[in-house]
């Protein structure tokens, strides 16, 4: 799949680099980015860098193991294809990436910004804590006041810099008259600073500078973890997009020119080579071929195409070159109409409230009311604003959601890391929580449960002589069925017969002469046979009845295990496909799926998922095609393989990076475990509040108690999260 996609991009590396630099007076070095999915150790780094640096024209090559990528600075005439073949010779799979699509991750400004704030908060809190410990240890009078003033001098600028994300978030929430988790955080930090300054000025005993700083530090740690998890997913998702550089060949007055798909207009003549994907909707003007529509409809049977046939964007041309006239481009193509279906279905996802939001909704008002009540109570009781304010600040600091801020990100980071090592990419922040609730799993057939490559099923039914002829004909074609036939026959030890005048007739098959007789391998009608409903190629030898070579779609690795694991876990498994009755039933029987639906249109799939949802089921949809996108978006949570179309990957929450399907059921287990840990973490945070809040309200809390309680709860929560790994 990927090889097919990259072949188009490798043809012209110069075109990829040129749009950014329209005029180049001096030939500068170009950046080439390669994706290396296979590297995993220090030996891999050394080999890849040595090989690349030894290649003439390479200025500097550096491998990034975390991103499994190599960045190469090279002379402008160097082509990525050369480097790919160099790496393939030493045994590493490599794909070219579009450096333009990757640029967003390289300058990771937001992450660096958060890390810097985290560092400032950390170093400042360490210093202030040092001074606070001396105060707790018994410093008095002028010494204590001096320590407090130094603490203030460190804390005020540090918080002014480090807590900015909280200030801006709280402000944007307050501006639209809403409360979020950041409002009590900001209130606690500000109140702590104000009362501490006031206390220091009056040489009071308690100052909370250390609490304000550690609070900022722990909360920033939670934010940073959260950000890192999502950034890793985003960069990998970007990489998948960068693999498909959208280009098309436009015919202008008979001359071919390569242009970006976005530049195509209605009425343009476009050449689509065998193996290429239709960039736009259109009508075939000339050429004969076969079309693979499986990504759009789920049908595995290739469709014959000739002049006059309409094609849709996303279909794959199999055998002969086709010239099409564009009838709809860009947003008018059927591909984009599917995307509109997704936008409608998206509302299902936004209805989900994450556990963190639920907690915040209960938490934020509760904390404010509690702190306001203790202020009022103490003011009425003692008549002293200073005491009352001190106690209100202590309540806010102690209840501040330090542990709550870490509870979710710490667990999601640990769980996402675990799943990433297994080859799954969590794209959506709440995907794990939703995955944990799944009770029904809906699978698509073509390209999801099956790998989309055909497999010969009736090799034994043919005589050796026929097989030898068929092999000779099949080897002359790159049609998927021919490739499968060649592979199966070669494995069975068949040698090709010697044929003369072998020619491929695009859209029909291959023919030749064998001992003076005409032999053909191809479509049913062309070889004089009756069309069946199974995928087949027919062999006709002059004077004999045509014989069928039957194919079935081969099962994806791990598909059987995944389905079995789901059934063992008591989940309902449903198979919905756009393919014919026969092939869907065959696959369902093979996997033991009782519930299956064939010949489903894209809308049917989405409707079925919605119907399940309305019955109160939480549906996991696993699919790869355009016909699945609406269903993927409508489902409670969705997974698509990396080989899926861009639109399907965008619509799904989780992307499966490898070819193996079996991690899906593991992912469900991990998700259940992760959600359990998140709930546990909330409980830990609550228990700590139940113990500490009465102390604070009673006016017994000291900065020492606040610091101890805050740190222990945050550390317990983080350690608990690590148990997910």
């Amino acid at each position: 799949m990927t090889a097919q996609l990259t072949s188009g991009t490798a043809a012209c590396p110069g075109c990829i680099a040129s749009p950014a630099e329209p005029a180049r007076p001096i030939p500068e070095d170009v950046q080439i980015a390669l994706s290396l999915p296979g590297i995993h150790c220090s030996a891999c780094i050394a080999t890849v860098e040595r090989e690349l640096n030894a290649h003439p024209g390479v200025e500097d090559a550096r491998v990034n193991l975390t991103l499994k990528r190599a960045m190469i600075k090279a002379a402008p005439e160097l082509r990525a294809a050369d480097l790919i073949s160099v790496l393939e010779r030493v045994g590493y799979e490599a794909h070219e990436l579009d450096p333009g699509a990757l640029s967003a991750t390289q300058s990771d400004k937001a992450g660096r910004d958060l890390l810097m704030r985290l560092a400032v908060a950390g170093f400042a809190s360490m210093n202030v804590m040092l001074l606070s410990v001396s105060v707790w240890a018994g410093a008095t009078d002028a010494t204590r006041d001096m320590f407090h003033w130094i603490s203030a001098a460190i804390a005020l600028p540090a918080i002014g810099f480090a807590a900015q994300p909280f200030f801006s978030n709280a402000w944007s929430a307050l501006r639209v008259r809403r409360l979020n988790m950041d409002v009590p955080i900001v209130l606690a930090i500000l109140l702590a600073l104000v009362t501490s300054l006031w206390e220091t000025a009056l040489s009071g005993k308690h100052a909370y500078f250390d609490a304000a700083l550690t609070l900022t530090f722990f909360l920033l740690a939670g934010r940073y973890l959260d950000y890192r998890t999502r950034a890793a997913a985003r960069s990998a998702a970007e990489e998948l997009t960068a693999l498909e550089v959208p280009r098309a060949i436009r015919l202008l007055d008979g001359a071919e020119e390569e242009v970006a798909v976005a530049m195509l207009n209605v009425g343009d003549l476009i050449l689509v080579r065998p193996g290429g994907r239709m960039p736009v909707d259109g009508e075939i003007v000339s050429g004969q071929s076969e079309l693979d529509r499986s990504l759009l409809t789920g049908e595995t049977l290739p469709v014959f195409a000739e002049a006059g046939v309409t094609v849709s964007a996303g279909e794959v041309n199999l055998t002969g070159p086709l010239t099409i006239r564009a009838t709809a481009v860009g947003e008018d193509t059927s591909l984009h109409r599917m995307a509109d279906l997704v936008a409608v279905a998206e509302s299902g996802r936004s209805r989900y409230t994450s556990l963190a939001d639920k907690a915040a909704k209960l938490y934020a008002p509760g904390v404010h009311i509690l702190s306001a009540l203790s202020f009022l109570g103490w003011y009425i009781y003692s008549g002293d604003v200073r005491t009352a304010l001190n106690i209100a600040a202590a309540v806010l600091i102690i209840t501040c959601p330090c542990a709550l801020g870490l509870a979710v990100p710490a667990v999601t980071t640990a769980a996402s890391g675990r799943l990433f090592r297994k080859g799954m990419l969590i794209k959506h922040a709440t995907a794990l929580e939703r995955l944990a609730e799944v009770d029904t799993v809906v699978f698509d057939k073509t390209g999801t449960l099956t790998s989309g490559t055909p497999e010969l099923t009736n090799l034994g039914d043919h005589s050796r002589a026929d097989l030898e002829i068929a092999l000779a004909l099949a080897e002359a074609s790159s049609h998927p069925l021919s490739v499968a036939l060649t592979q199966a026959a070669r494995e069975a030890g068949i040698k090709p017969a010697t044929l003369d005048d072998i020619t491929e007739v695009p859209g029909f098959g291959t023919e030749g002469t064998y001992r003076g007789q005409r032999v053909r391998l191809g479509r049913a009608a062309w070889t004089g046979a009756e069309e069946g409903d199974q995928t087949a190629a027919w062999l006709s030898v002059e004077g004999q009845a045509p014989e069928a070579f039957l194919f079935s779609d081969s099962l994806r690795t791990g598909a059987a295990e995944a389905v079995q694991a789901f059934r063992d876990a008591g989940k309902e498994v449903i198979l919905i496909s756009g393919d014919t009755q026969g092939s869907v039933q065959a696959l369902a029987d093979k996997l033991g799926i009782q519930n299956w639906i064939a010949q489903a249109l894209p809308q049917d799939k989405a409707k079925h998922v919605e119907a399940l949802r309305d019955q109160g089921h939480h549906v996991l949809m696993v699919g790869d095609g355009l016909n699945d996108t609406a269903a993927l978006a409508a489902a409670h949570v969705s997974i698509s393989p990396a080989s899926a179309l861009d639109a399907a990957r965008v619509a799904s929450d989780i992307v499966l990076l490898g070819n193996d399907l079996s991690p899906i059921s593991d992912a469900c287990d991990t998700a259940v475990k992760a959600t359990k840990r998140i709930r546990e973490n909330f409980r830990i945070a609550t228990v700590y509040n139940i113990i500490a809040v009465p102390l604070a309200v009673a006016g017994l809390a000291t900065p020492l108690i606040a610091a101890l309680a805050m740190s222990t709860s945050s550390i317990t929560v983080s350690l608990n999260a690590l148990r997910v790994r």
Partner: protein
Amino acid sequence: MEVLAYLIPISLFLGGVGLVAFVYTVRSNQYDDPEGDARRILNDEWDDKPKP
């Protein structure tokens, strides 16, 4: 207590040194490939001196 006059500036200075060092590591992209850097240390090539 006069010793505080030395100790406090020293502790602040050391903290500042740590912070500046950290800022330098972030600015020079030293956290871009944590996994690769952990492996590179085991690499046989360029063991005695950094890569030229």
